[in-house]
């Protein structure tokens, strides 16, 4: 053996280690790949050896090679081998390699589960640490599921080093195994107050990460975080919390109000720029979330803007960048405050740093007004000229277009200027955004009617100049512009001054070098132009001109007929034949112009881009049904979609409904016509000619001012926009002068001294009237268009699965899977995870079993905790809280405040009853803000729990069809009660708090915050009934069916030590009957008792569960049993026993199952159920109490309630349906019941009867 080690060590001395490998690679620069391949061969040899040291060395080298891009997944198994070494050195190498190259589809990962588990529980904290670190990188859903419980235990490790790692990795576990979130969350929350700052920071980190994706579920933690924010000094933690608040405030405006002051203080006091920046950011978020109207609103905004200005002016480029970034957030809601810093932002446009320039560009978007748009764009155009990189230049181009076209060209006063800007932009070569310019040209030309003449002239110049035709057509995106130019010239050809010249330009041979889709447009529009030319020429006496034009077409078109592009070819040959025919007619002196132009008659209406999508499917139309017989397979394969042209078609050209069948089309057209006739805003198409713009009543009210044609139009290819700036200046001055004449007295002082500088005086937006009133045609939408319903959420987002309500109580089925040999689990089969108990209660027990060191005190607190947990359950229901929070977010804050005033005073006395609403309600009272931290401190721990307790009061709950809620039927009590309230006080639903504490049995504890309340609160109820009791011990139990297994019943027994001695070695035994048997661990005899997995110090109680198998559930039955235990004093110990009788009622076989009313009705209609009924006399309690009792004690849920009549439903563990119809009149309650098993029903009814006879 020793020799082997020695031999291994010697071997190792001759192996290359990592350093040698690196050195070797560096020495083989010219044949690196070859050298590495020999190294890999060596590594493969090394991996074959038994010596773990050699293997580890090899794996270490592989990790290096992986960094260089080599796939080393083939060595995955060897990596696992090295991971499982007992030596830390090798283990670390193994885990490092695994973390670098393992991923979800690495199959050997499943071999690692046990090894990782072993490492996690290693006595050496660094073994655990290394395993956690590695696992964090390659955790898979399977690993997460199997190890979640082990990691959760580590969150309470004694070493903070492990604790913080365990806390952090939980986030990864949640992502892979979302079911673990709820059971683990209570402990995670505990870690927020861990004594170690590192652990605390990790917990904050994880919760912030979780809350960022699904903020609404974490609102209830706000008070706790608030406390941390005001107490923590760790900037990392502060930053995280402040960022988290930024995500929470949009959901809860009151939170924002509360935050403003401490944040403002931090802004004033902190010296850390990172913290300052995040504070500013969150304040901005708060201000965005608050509806305006807060008095000190503007002060906060001013503070933010002021601080940001300091950042932007800083010489540190990073601060400058962030300052601009934050500014853009303010811009969205408070553009005015940002606009005052225009100078600074424009200055940033000249910054040498591209990131900063881009940020500044983003801001410009909000800086523009009618007044300064031209000036800003002029500046940007200068940048376009200077810009060296195409990316930045393209960015500028899109920004210019964005700025100008924003909110429907709101800021453009002069469209001639805009068109000339667009034309200037066409000189940008190599831009990718040619189509953007083109679509703008089209959009403006179509929608701004007054500009068409000008636009057409400009486009004609573009076509004629054809400087765009140079260069590589296919790659140069700018030639897209010609597409627009040709179309505009064709469509609005009546505005052309010299159509023949343009026609000639469009038919030049060079056009054939353009991309196909553009050529197609050229050809088509040449035909339109031809029609116009003919029209103009036919009036003349000389017919030769017209014939010459035809000849021109006939000469030039053949070029296009030969085009390789199908679309071009088809159109060209069609048109060529047409022209030839026209020429024939012309030679016979036939007037053809009218008929030719009829080909292109009709005006276009701009159609909204989404219009097609929004057309609702008409009733009776089945889009999936075949109109004709489906074509055979082979046919459909041959058919190629012919969308070459349609694809390229701009959004505003004629919509082509090719797929709609004729009838439908006609019907729709008719309907639309009618709709349009009734719509005063709809601009009707004039059927006769495009020329007539103002003959319809729809546009008459829009004053269309004639364009001043003194503007020099024909400067081909020259920058002209500057002239417009000047002209616009002059025009405005002229206008002002006119106005001045009118209101001399008022405006005198303001106007004088206004020179060329635009921003020198406070000229308001309204003062600037556009050069020509622009008739911006709104885009056409189909009649009864569907409202926008675009859901952008990515269905693959892993965080979606983590949208889990954390406040609702844990259901039994949510328990984390635990290895079966754990003490607490010893008597259960692994399959019944589902029905045990919430892991939150469970966890302390496990701890008890595992860490014997734990003191009594801890146990005590555990007990309290579990009690609290149970109490909590009473007040909760399974409806998602997010409804509450969502509802609050939607509702105006005013309303909740108004209820708060009522709610706040009574609650302030007890920390127990405080909740998020209460905590938040402090905010409006200024004097309270100082105390807030301390109040929050006192409340912090109970707050989130209780807060969740208020949830049932808020929203109507539809019973969910999930089978999650088989646990405590008590939940339904709340649910039902709430439902009733819903009906009566929908408007005041927010603030009713009911706190019932069944264990105290005192009604005085129940606090009612809602003042308006007709129905009495429910008395406390408990399903735990006394099992047996003597002077040493008391046993109470609750019996529940197991939904997952129709033959199992779970008995939860709470053992309470009543004496001063220690109780240990408790053994629970039951005499099995034929029908029911206690489940015992494998290998034990049928009469053996089960060891209770804990001991009881004096005064302590704990809960254990026992599983029984039952055969038939239609009859109640009793089982005799005995508990034996040892009472241990300081000096003596005695054996004691306690006999008990377990009563399995039929009710305990029922499981609360929600049922929708329609399903319920179907069930009753089915006729499979047999009826029975029972009358209860002298029931003296409100109806809702009655229902609550049935729900609670007999595991029913309310399906529907109408006045004094309610239908209820439950299901047995073996799937029998039990339906009740409960009616009340006076003191008589009649229950009609139906069930598919009459015996069961009879027994259940007897039990219900008994319940009510007792009270």
């Amino acid at each position, binding site marked *: 053996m*020793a020799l082997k*080690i*020695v031999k291994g*060590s*010697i071997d190792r001395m001759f192996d290359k280690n*990592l*350093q040698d490998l*690196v050195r070797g690679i*560096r020495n083989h620069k010219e044949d690196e790949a070859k050298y590495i391949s020999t190294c890999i061969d060596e590594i493969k040899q090394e991996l074959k050896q038994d010596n773990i*040291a050699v293997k580890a060395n090899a794996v270490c080298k592989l*990790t*290096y090679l*992986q*960094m*260089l*891009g*080599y*796939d080393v997944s083939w060595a995955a198994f060897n990596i696992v081998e090295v991971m499982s070494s007992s030596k*830390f*050195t090798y283990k*670390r*190498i193994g885990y*490092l390699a695994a973390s*670098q190259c393992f*991923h979800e589809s690495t199959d050997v990962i499943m071999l690692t589960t046990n090894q990782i588990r072993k490492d996690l529980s290693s006595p050496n904290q*660094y073994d655990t640490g290394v395993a956690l*670190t590695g696992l*964090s*990188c390659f955790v898979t859903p399977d690993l997460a599921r199997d190890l979640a419980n082990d990691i959760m235990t580590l969150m309470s490790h004694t070493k903070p*080093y492990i604790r*913080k*790692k365990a806390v*952090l*990795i939980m*986030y990864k576990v949640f992502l892979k195994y979302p079911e673990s979130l709820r059971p683990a969350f209570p402990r995670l929350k505990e870690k927020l107050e861990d004594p170690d700052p*590192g652990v605390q920071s*990790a917990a904050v*980190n*994880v919760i*912030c*990460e979780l809350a960022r994706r699904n903020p609404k579920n974490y609102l209830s933690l706000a008070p706790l975080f608030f406390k941390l924010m005001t107490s923590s000094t760790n*900037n*990392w933690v502060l*930053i995280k919390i402040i*960022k988290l608040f930024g995500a929470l405030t949009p959901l809860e405006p009151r939170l924002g109000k509360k935050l403003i002051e401490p944040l403002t203080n931090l802004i004033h006091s902190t010296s850390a*720029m*990172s913290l300052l*920046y*995040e504070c500013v950011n969150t304040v901005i978020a708060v201000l965005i979330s608050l509806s305006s109207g807060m008095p000190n609103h503007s002060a906060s905004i001013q503070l933010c803007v002021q601080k940001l200005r300091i950042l932007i002016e800083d010489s540190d*480029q*990073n601060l*400058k*960048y*962030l300052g601009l970034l934050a500014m853009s957030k303010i811009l969205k809601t408070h553009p005015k405050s940002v606009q005052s810093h225009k100078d600074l932002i424009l200055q940033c446009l000249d910054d*040498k*740093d*591209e*990131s*900063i320039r*881009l940020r500044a560009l983003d801001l410009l978007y909000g800086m523009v007004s009618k007044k300064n748009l031209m000036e800003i764009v002029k500046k940007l155009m200068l940048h376009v000229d200077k810009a060296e990189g195409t990316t930045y230049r393209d960015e500028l181009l899109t920004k210019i277009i964005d700025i100008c076209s924003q909110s429907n060209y709101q800021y453009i006063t002069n469209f001639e200027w805009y068109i000339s800007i667009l034309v200037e932009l066409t000189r940008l070569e190599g831009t990718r955004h040619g189509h953007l310019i083109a679509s703008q040209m089209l959009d403006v030309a179509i929608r701004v009617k007054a500009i068409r003449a000008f636009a057409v002239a400009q486009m004609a110049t573009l076509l004629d100049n054809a400087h765009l035709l140079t260069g590589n057509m296919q790659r140069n995106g700018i030639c897209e512009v010609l597409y627009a130019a040709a179309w505009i010239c064709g469509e609005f050809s009546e505005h052309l001054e010299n159509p023949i010249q343009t026609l000639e330009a469009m038919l030049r041979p060079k056009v054939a070098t353009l991309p196909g889709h553009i050529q197609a447009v050229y050809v088509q529009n040449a035909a339109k132009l031809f029609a116009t030319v003919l029209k103009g020429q036919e009036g003349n006496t000389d017919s030769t001109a017209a014939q010459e034009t035809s000849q021109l077409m006939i000469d030039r078109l053949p070029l296009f007929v030969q085009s390789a592009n199908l679309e071009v070819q088809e159109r060209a040959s069609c048109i060529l034949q047409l022209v030839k025919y026209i020429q024939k007619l012309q030679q016979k002196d036939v007037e053809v112009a009218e008929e030719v132009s009829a080909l292109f008659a009709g005006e276009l209406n701009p159609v909204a881009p989404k219009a097609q999508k929004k057309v609702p499917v008409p009733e009776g139309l089945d889009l999936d049904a075949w109109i004709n017989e489906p074509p055979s397979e082979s046919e459909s394969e041959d058919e190629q979609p012919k969308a070459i042209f349609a694809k390229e078609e701009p959004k505003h050209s004629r919509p082509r409904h090719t797929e709609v069948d004729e009838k439908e089309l006609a019907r729709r057209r008719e309907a639309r016509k009618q709709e349009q006739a009734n719509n005063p805003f709809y601009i009707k198409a004039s059927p006769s000619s495009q020329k007539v713009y103002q003959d319809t009543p729809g546009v008459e009210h829009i004053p269309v001012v004639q364009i001043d044609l003194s503007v020099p139009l024909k400067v081909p290819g020259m920058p002209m926009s500057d002239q417009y700036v000047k002209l616009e200046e002059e025009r405005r001055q002229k206008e002002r002068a006119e106005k001045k004449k009118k209101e001399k007295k008022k405006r005198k002082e303001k106007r004088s001294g206004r020179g060329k500088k635009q921003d020198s005086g406070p000229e308001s937006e309204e003062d600037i009237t556009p050069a020509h009133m622009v008739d911006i045609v709104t885009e056409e939408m189909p009649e009864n268009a569907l409202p926008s319903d675009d859901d952008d959420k990515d269905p693959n987002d892993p965080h979606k699965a983590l949208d889990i309500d954390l406040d609702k109580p844990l259901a039994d089925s949510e328990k984390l899977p635990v290895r079966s040999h754990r003490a607490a689990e010893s008597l259960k089969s692994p399959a019944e995870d589902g029905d045990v108990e919430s892991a939150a209660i469970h966890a302390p027990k496990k701890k008890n079993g595992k860490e014997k060191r734990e003191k009594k005190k801890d146990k005590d607190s555990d007990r309290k905790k579990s009690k609290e947990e149970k109490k909590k359950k009473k007040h909760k229901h399974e409806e998602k809280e997010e409804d509450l929070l969502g509802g609050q977010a939607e509702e105006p804050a005013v309303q909740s405040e108004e209820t708060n005033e009522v709610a706040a005073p009574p609650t302030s006395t007890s920390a127990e009853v405080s909740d998020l609403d209460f905590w938040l309600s402090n905010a409006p009272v200024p004097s309270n803000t100082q105390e807030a931290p301390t109040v929050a401190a006192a409340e912090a721990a109970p707050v989130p729990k209780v807060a969740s307790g208020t949830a049932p009061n808020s929203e109507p709950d539809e019973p969910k069809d999930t089978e999650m809620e088989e646990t405590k039927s008590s939940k339904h009590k709340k649910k039902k009660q709430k439902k009733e309230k819903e009906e009566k006080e929908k408007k005041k639903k927010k603030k009713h708090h009911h706190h019932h504490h069944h264990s105290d049995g005192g009604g005085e504890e129940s606090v009612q915050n809602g003042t308006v309340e007709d129905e009495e609160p429910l008395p406390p109820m408990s399903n735990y009934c006394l099992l047996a009791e003597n002077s040493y011990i008391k046993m109470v139990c609750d019996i529940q069916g197991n939904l997952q297994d129709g033959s199992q019943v779970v008995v939860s027994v709470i053992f309470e030590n009543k004496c001063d001695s220690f109780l240990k070695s408790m053994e629970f035994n039951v005499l099995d009957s034929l029908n029911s048997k206690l489940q015992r661990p494998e290998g034990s005899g049928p009469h053996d008792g089960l060891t209770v997995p804990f001991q009881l110090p004096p005064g302590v109680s704990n809960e254990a569960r026992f599983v029984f198998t039952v055969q038939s559930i239609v009859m109640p039955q009793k089982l005799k049993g005995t508990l034996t235990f040892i009472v241990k004093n300081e000096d003596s110990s005695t054996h004691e026993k306690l006999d008990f009788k377990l009563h399995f009622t039929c009710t305990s076989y029922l499981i609360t199952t929600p049922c929708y009313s329609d399903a319920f009705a179907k069930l009753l209609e089915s006729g499979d159920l047999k009826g029975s009924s029972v009358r209860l006399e002298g029931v003296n309690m409100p109806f809702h109490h009655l229902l609550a009792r049935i729900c609670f004690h007999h595991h029913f849920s309310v399906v529907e309630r109408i006045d004094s009549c309610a239908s209820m439903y439950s299901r047995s563990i073996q799937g029998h349906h039990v339906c009740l119809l409960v009616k009340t009149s006076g003191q008589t309650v009649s229950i009609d019941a139906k069930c598919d098993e009459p015996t069961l029903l009879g027994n259940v009814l007897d039990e219900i009867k008994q319940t009510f006879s007792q009270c």
Partner: protein
Amino acid sequence: MIKAILIFNNHGKPRLIRFYQYFAEDMQQQIIRETFHLVSKRDDNVCNFLEGGSLIGGSDYKLIYRHYATLYFVFCVDSSESELGILDLIQVFVETLDKCFENVCELDLIFHMDKVHYILQEVVMGGMVLETNMNEIVAQVEVQNRMEKSEVSVQCQPVAELISG
């Protein structure tokens, strides 16, 4: 969350790569190339934030980097991280390296990639910041190094005996 940490030199040679999200090896190399391309053309006096890495992340992600002598330290992070905070973190990481290697230089990273990884593991875990206190980081790294040494010396003992005997 931190999505990736890349260290490469002025020529784009990777010195350490740590992805917290799985990418195949060739994709990783592509990302390194792209990131290097983006970062290297920037002057030293421009800001340390960068948007627009197309391969990694998307609009929510930013590259935050620092340039030290011959090395670029690049962190790819999402919007939940504070930009300035990450810059500080890079500084902490580099100072920690400096302490652990005593005047760290590129060669240390070249020959001791594994050690750099071990140090990084004490700073960032699974894409989340684990520790920002340099002394704590250094302490944990040193304890682990001592453990490794003690194991190695046990391992080497027989060899020593063999040689001496």
